[in-house]
Every structure is written in structure tokens, then in C-alpha cells.
């Protein structure tokens, strides 16, 4: 089992997903793969079905409502002075309880080298919260830059389809390098260097305290993502995502994959921000009948929305046993 966590972390840090050896396949999975070989599927029909399914966007709607409501709660708390959620995404107080973003806390701790009680409490609370909720769930359900970026992504995908532009991928390992370098820069220089360019902090503050010049940087990032590289910031740069991802390695909440239901038409991999976590859906890859999707998954639910056969679903580990 430890192997599973290690593989999940390894892939998140930038390694290519490992193909399972024949001995690692369970008897059940072998049987399913055997019968699938014989099966003849009408892929064209499946795609049409998948596209019709996609339009429902149940999880997309739930997610966007959550994301917008969370960010607007910050704004109205300040503007209407209702004091429910004070501060910004980097650090806040919900009804008096400290909440501190894990990556911002890490940067401050490394730069300042002195941790006061409130900082510790707020970081601990948020750590437990996202450990339970799935780590990178923060990215797709809360981060306001994610919202802008996924809409820019739609434009990017449209332009690629129309052959106006081509997508340029980077090596995923570069995000790990960034994480280490930003940590080292904070430690050595004593400044929270990453916060200067963090679009998450910039957009969050702009929503609460009003727009500023910093939004220009965010626009440049979005243009880069639209015209050059799909979802570049979230995929290849953002250390916030990796920090939450590490927390999410041991989270009970994740997307689960049921091999028997899958038709392998691959629509889920097309909508995924981190398609490497869905390598197991490629025909013949899944070593067991049911699999947990890795920690780099942002639990956005796009794959669940798009899957026509119910092969992917949210699962909270242990909950089924209790219920």
C-alpha cells in the first residue's frame, strides 16, 4: 500500500506514471481486461454520448458556485463589515478562528524564521481542513486564479482546435524545481519572493481591496496560457498547488476509478488539468478493478462530469464501510 502513496507523490513531482508489471495485475483486473479485448465498441457513438453528457456539468456548477461564494464572502465580509471571513486567501479569520494558507505560511516561516502562536494555529487548522478535503481541492474549489485560468483554457482549447495556435508543453518536473527554489529564496533572502508574483494572492486581494497594477501581471499570465501553453501556471509553476498536493497524498477524499465501467474512449483525459493522474484509464493499464486517482488530482470533477459510463466518481475512504 505504501507503494501506492509513493507512486502518487512521484508522479506529482514530475515523473512519468509507471506501467504496472504483469504480476501486479489482480485476477479480477486480468479477467476484465481479457473480456474487454474481445468487446467491440462503437467509439463514434460513445463520443457523441460523452459530449451530450458533458453538457450537464453537475460538478462544474457546484464547484464554481463554491469558488465564487468563498471569494465573495471575503469581499462582502469587508465591504458590508459583517466580519464572517476577514482577511484574504493568504491569511484570514473565519468567525474569529485563524486560517492561514499553507504555502504563504511556509514562505513566511522560511523567510522570517520565527513562528508565533497564531500563525501556528492558523496553519494547523488549514492543514487538517485540506487533509480531510483532499489537498489540491483548494486549487479547483477555492483559488480565484484557477477560475480565470480554466476559462482562459477554454479559449486556448478552442484556438488549438481551430488550428490558430499550437500548445507548448513543459516538463512537469519544473514545478518541483520551482517549489524548491522559491523555498530556498525565502530562506536565503528573507523575503517572501513568491508572493510578489503569486496570482492567487494578487487576485484575492484585488477582489477584496480593489484592483491594482498587479492585475497586469495576471493578465500577462493568462495571455501566455491562452496563446502559448495550456494551463501553464497551475501545471508547471505554482508551488501552492504542490504544497496542497503533498497534503492531499494521504487524504481520504479522492476520485476513484472503476475499471469494469470504463469504455476507454479517453474523454476524461482531455478535460483534465493534470491528465497524467488518469493514465490508469488507458486500455489495459489499470492493475486492479478499482483505483484511487493520485494526489496531483485537483478533485475538480470534470472527469466525472464527462464520463458517460460512471467509471469515475468521488469517494471518501472508509465512508462506505461505515454506512
Amino acid at each position, binding site marked *: 500500500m505504501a507503494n501506492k502513496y509513493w507512486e502518487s507523490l512521484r508522479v506529482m513531482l514530475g515523473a512519468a506514471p509507471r506501467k504496472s508489471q504483469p504480476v501486479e495485475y489482480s485476477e479480477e483486473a486480468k479477467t476484465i481486461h481479457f473480456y474487454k479485448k474481445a468487446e467491440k465498441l462503437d467509439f463514434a457513438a460513445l463520443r457523441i454520448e460523452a459530449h451530450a453528457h458533458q453538457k450537464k456539468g453537475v460538478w462544474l456548477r457546484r464547484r464554481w458556485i463554491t469558488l465564487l461564494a468563498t471569494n465573495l464572502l471575503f469581499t462582502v465580509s469587508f465591504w458590508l463589515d459583517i466580519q464572517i471571513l476577514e482577511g484574504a486567501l493568504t491569511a484570514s479569520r473565519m468567525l474569529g478562528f485563524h486560517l492561514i494558507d499553507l504555502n504563504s505560511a511556509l514562505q513566511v516561516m522560511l523567510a522570517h524564521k520565527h513562528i508565533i502562536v497564531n500563525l501556528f494555529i492558523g496553519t494547523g487548522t488549514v492543514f487538517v481542513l485540506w487533509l480531510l478535503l483532499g489537498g489540491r481541492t483548494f486549487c479547483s474549489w477555492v483559488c480565484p486564479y484557477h477560475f480565470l485560468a480554466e476559462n482562459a483554457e477554454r479559449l486556448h482549447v478552442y484556438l488549438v482546435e481551430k488550428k490558430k495556435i499550437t500548445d507548448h508543453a513543459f516538463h512537469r518536473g519544473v514545478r518541483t524545481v520551482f517549489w524548491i527554489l522559491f523555498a530556498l529564496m525565502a530562506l536565503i533572502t528573507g523575503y517572501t519572493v513568491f508572493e510578489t508574483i503569486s496570482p492567487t494572492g494578487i487576485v484575492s*486581494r484585488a477582489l477584496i481591496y480593489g484592483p491594482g497594477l498587479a492585475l497586469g501581471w495576471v493578465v500577462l499570465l493568462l495571455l501566455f496560457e491562452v496563446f502559448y501553453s495550456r494551463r501553464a501556471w497551475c501545471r508547471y509553476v505554482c508551488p501552492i498547488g504542490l504544497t496542497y498536493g503533498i497534503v492531499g497524498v494521504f487524504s481520504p477524499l479522492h476520485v476513484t476509478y472503476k475499471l469494469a465501467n470504463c469504455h476507454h474512449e479517453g474523454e476524461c483525459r482531455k478535460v483534465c488539468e493534470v491528465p497524467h493522474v488518469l493514465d490508469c484509464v488507458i486500455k489495459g493499464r489499470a492493475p486492479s478493478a478499482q483505483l484511487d486517482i493520485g494526489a496531483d488530482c485537483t478533485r475538480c470533477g470534470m472527469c466525472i462530469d464527462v464520463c458517460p459510463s460512471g467509471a469515475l466518481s468521488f469517494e471518501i475512504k472508509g465512508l462506505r464501510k461505515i454506512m
Partner: protein
Amino acid sequence: MSTEKTPPINPLINKRKLEERRRVLRSIILGVAVLGISSVGYIPVARAWNVRMRPPGALEEADFLSSCIKCGQCVQVCPVQAIKLDDIDQGFGIGVPYIDSRSQACDFSCDAVQCILACPTGSLVYDKPGFMPTRSEMKVANPPILLAKEKSPEPTLNLKERTGLAVLARPEKCLARQGKGVKGAARGQAFEGTMRFMEVDRWKPIPLRDHPYDLELCDLCVRTCPIKGAISMETVVENGVSIKTPVVHEPCVGCGVCEMVCPPEPAAIVVEARKGWSA
């Protein structure tokens, strides 16, 4: 022309390898670019383009910048909205709070230095940790007495260091020194700064323009100063002529109210950020 014999290559593998190599190269360029851009943020800090006055209880500048998490909770609790957050043109100082006294000074109308209470990371603190050096000239000799609370059993402000010091930077502009008075709003009708006036409402600061004056001789800096004994109007003899002039004393904490109310443009009295007291 000799026909060169090249070994047969698998075009598919070759293409994949080429793309792989390009991807690594692109990634290196991305790395250098992002780190380069973020490092540019050091320039405004190192050059000290704008020497900002930080909110009360702030650590010394280097410690302040390293510890601030840029959340703006201090901004949210300030009853007169004196605290603002810096923009990306301040580099590493982005999202970090400062006070521009001329447009809105801290008048301590919260009575308890709420911004210090709100700070989650200890960038603003009542008591500085022993190992974090504070310049001795920044410390105030005695706990500052808030004139608004002078008659209450606990009239002092929980503040041990000043944020700066008031200085009569442009004496030639000072109305008192010219023997001039003030009639109407101190800063005109367009000025939007607010202040608490105890005789109006203890808990609700009002715009300065709604509180007109009619003074024979301007003494606004002395009259509005929230701290006891921080400033007084003295008679001095200059060039054989006896004139009135404001004099700043040791209890000054650098709140900036004098700079905000000073009628001439630019102000005669200003707060020098992070300046300490020297006798």
C-alpha cells in the same frame, strides 16, 4: 556531389526525442524567466524607492517584510481606513500595509491599536521579541497617554515604539509662524480624510471637512494631536521678532494627524517614517 549515406532512422522516435529535448529546453527557459521576473521585486526594496510608514507596532523594515503574509486584516479593522496595501510596483513589498498620513492618518480612534491585534503573523506586535532588534530611538520613554481617554482609569495606549517622528519640515509654510489663522475646513471641501472628535462622537470618525474651524492663529497640529505632551505651541524670538511655532516633543509616536490636518500645501509639518527621537 557525393551521395551521403545516412543510417536509417525511425522518424517517429526521432520526432519524439526532438520534442522531448525542446520541452526540456523550454522548461529551463521558463524557470529562468519566472525566477528572473520574481527577483525584479528586489529592486524597489533595495533602492528604497518609497520609504513607507508602517502601521503601529511594526517590526523593523526587514523583519516586517519577511513576516507579513499580505492578508490585509489590519486594513479591515482600522476605523479610519488609514492602512493601505502596496501594489506590485513595490516589488517584494506587494500587499504589505502602509500609512500615507497626508491622505489619512492613524488617529488612534480604535483606542486599542486594533491592527496589532488583527495581525496573524506577528508583523505588528505589542511587545517585540527580545532577539528582534529594535533601534533604541524608536522606543517611547513612557506609555503614550491618549488624550481622548485621559480621564479614564487606563488612559495609556499599548504602544511601545513610534512609527516615525513629526518634523516641521517646511517652517516657511507654517501658518502659525506667519501669524495666520484658519477659517473653514482645515484641508478644504475636497479632502476626504476622516477623524474622530470626542465632542462629536467617540466611536464614529467624521470627515475632516465636516468639522470647520475659526481660529485667529492656526494651532491645528497642537489642537488635534491625539497624544499627550507630544507637541506644543511655543513662543520663540527669531531675527528679533517674537513668533509662535509648533515644537515636537519626545512622546510623539509619529501617528501623522498633524501632517493630515496641516492646512498649507504641501504640509509644513510632516511625519518622517521610521525616524527615531534624538534629543
